[in-house]
């Protein structure tokens, strides 16, 4: 149960990070609190838009969906694996892969690191680990009765 709660809390925190970056992209927040200035470089690059929409907006939507699914899974009386867990695992894995792609762009193409993107990447990584944990445990035969 605590695993699902942690996913919901992390998703909510991630949603605020993405909202922050999205609002900046919309011009509603002046200067990103970044330190290195890499955030401006990344946010202003052509890679901050994906399929015509700001990347940060994908983050807001993705985290919101993870948060909603997390709440649903937390409210499940039965602790066994259910459809919300499957949905979270799929969504979190997709988000993790997308984050890997974005991080590679920062490192090897844009040559600038946005600290908020790193925070988001850490959150996504934590979520995907938590989401896939029961699968890993099951595969080695140690899945607890209430995950």
């Amino acid at each position, binding site marked *: 149960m605590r695993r699902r709660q942690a996913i919901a*809390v992390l998703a909510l925190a991630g949603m605020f990070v993405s909202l922050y970056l999205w*609002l900046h992209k919309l011009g509603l927040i002046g200067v990103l609190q970044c330190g290195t200035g890499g955030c*401006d470089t990344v946010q*202003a690059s052509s890679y901050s838009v994906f399929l015509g929409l700001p990347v940060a907006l994908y983050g807001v939507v993705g985290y919101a969906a993870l948060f909603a699914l997390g709440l649903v899974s937390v409210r499940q009386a039965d602790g066994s694996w259910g459809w919300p867990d499957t949905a979270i695992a799929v969504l979190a894995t997709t988000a993790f892969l997308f984050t890997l792609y974005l991080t590679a762009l920062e490192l090897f193409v844009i040559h600038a690191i946005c600290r908020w993107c790193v925070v988001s990447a850490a959150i996504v990584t934590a979520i995907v680990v938590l989401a896939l944990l029961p699968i890993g445990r099951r595969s080695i035969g140690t899945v607890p009765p209430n995950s």
Partner: protein
Amino acid sequence: MKGFYILLVAVGIGGAGWLVYSARNKPTERPAPATPAAAPAAGAFRGYTLGSDSAPITITEYSDFQCPYCASFVTVQMPEVRTQLIGTGKVLWRFRDFPLPSHKYSNLAAMAGQCAGEQGKFWEMHDQIFYNHQWAERGKNPSGQFREFAKAIGADVARYDACMDSQRYAGRIEESRQEGIAAGVDATPKFYFDGRRFDGMPTSDTFKHIVDSIIATRKR
């Protein structure tokens, strides 16, 4: 379970409060975009340009072909600058060589740019050199690679070779560097808006904001 909901509310209030605080602290004006600096000295050759000569603002860029930040600017920010500022007639973009002495092949790259420019292909070579910037990290003499770039952009390679061998633009490149030193260039890339030095983070958004501000101020 109660503790979980308390934690959620705490994160929610904290996050919302942070966003509201950030939005309220939005500066009405960005920091002063430019520091007064000496205008570039007049010379016979003033650098290759992009855009309309009648554009209201000239941005002069002092750049080093081997500098990774210059490459990053060209590949990441410049496409937006070309579309939003140069393509719209707001800006005339002027490129000035500023080969840093610490970079072994900067002068060679600048020469390749000038020799391509002799054939009307400076910007094509400029893009080749910056978009294929792996040469700058290998530490090997990139002459052969620059020659391949010249071929790729459709330059007359024999003429390009003759130009490179003669080093005939060495004086022009050094003049450009001296002009930059006189203007206060201390790092690359460095930008000047109508002769006024810009010391902020060079992003297309920032440049657009500054250009629009200057144009709006002049209209008043």
